[in-house]
């Protein structure tokens, strides 16, 4: 079975390395590229057309929400998992509006990253459990 191709986007290199370490230790995933800012993410996503883009929200411009909104039209098959330290309902709402399929808090990342990716592969949304399931359903389904 072909691996799921994942593009990593975060301006923090240690975060990217941590995510890469988890994915490379797991069968079925291949990290196809890494980007350190919004512009590089747009360029690499266009070139690589990954199955999943794991992306931070707070990045040198354009930020993760703006990138997600742009890719929604140009790469509709690429699922976007936003990974962030913002735990506000307002940011969750903005992520849903930008077209993200998943919203994972950085504090949950090691424990729930693979669960989040599996949900996205099943064409189902994922939202960190810190948010109410009702709100998550309302925004993402």
């Amino acid at each position, binding site marked *: 079975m072909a691996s799921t191709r994942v593009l990593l986007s975060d301006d923090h290199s240690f975060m990217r*390395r941590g995510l*890469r370490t988890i994915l490379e230790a797991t069968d079925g995933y291949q990290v196809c590229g890494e980007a350190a800012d919004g512009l590089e993410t747009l360029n690499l996503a266009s070139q690589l057309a990954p199955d999943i883009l794991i992306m931070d929200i707070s990045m040198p411009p354009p930020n993760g929400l703006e990138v997600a909104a742009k890719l929604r039209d140009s790469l509709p098959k690429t699922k976007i998992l936003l990974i962030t330290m913002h735990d506000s309902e307002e940011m969750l709402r903005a992520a849903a509006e930008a077209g993200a399929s998943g919203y994972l808090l950085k504090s949950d990342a090691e424990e729930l990253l693979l669960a989040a990716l599996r949900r996205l592969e099943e064409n189902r949304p994922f939202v960190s459990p810190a948010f109410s399931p009702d709100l998550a359903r309302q925004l993402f389904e």
Partner: protein
Amino acid sequence: MNTLRVLIADDHDVVRKGLKMLIEEHPGWEVCAEARSGREAVAKCTQSNPDVVVIDVSMPDLNGLEATKQIRKACPRAEVLVITHHDSDEMAAAVMDSGARGYVLKSDSDVDLVRAVEALGHHKPFFTSRVTEMFLANRGGRVSDPAEMLRGRLTAREREILQLIAEGKTAKEVAVVLGIATKTSDTHRTNIMRKLDLHSVAELVRYAIRNRVVEP
């Protein structure tokens, strides 16, 4: 060759994982302990006696800068490298004031972190050129650190308590965390508010955010 022993402190598991991989890829270096808060970092430092501590600024319970001050006091042989996503003159000054001898931004490259750990392993400081320039400018008389007022006015214990209150802990919870009486915790809070001329917990929280004692 002696092994260089490194303690990693960051509240995000994935960041610790990334740092650990990076450090352990280097021959002769090992991660001897990991911590998820500033308080845990201080405790693990005294237990494991590392050569270098790599510590994040924004952590719960006790932030990385306050933890660095305690580490430098408890384990003076350990060098501290601060990592942060805050890129500002104020933060650079606060890092240097804490007793850390290295400062790397989270957006800096893996190579910068390795160079920093290497330098500190030889008890040499490591700052990026931008930080060095800022430091020299301040030495020339341009000191513009808003947190300096806070550092000057509050004791180390009061700064710890300020962070805990700003994180939402009650006087009783603060007392439990620090192993002191609730009445003592209350007295510290009263003193903090008097020294800073604040009149409510809400004002105190706003003050802590403004001075980057806690994240907004």
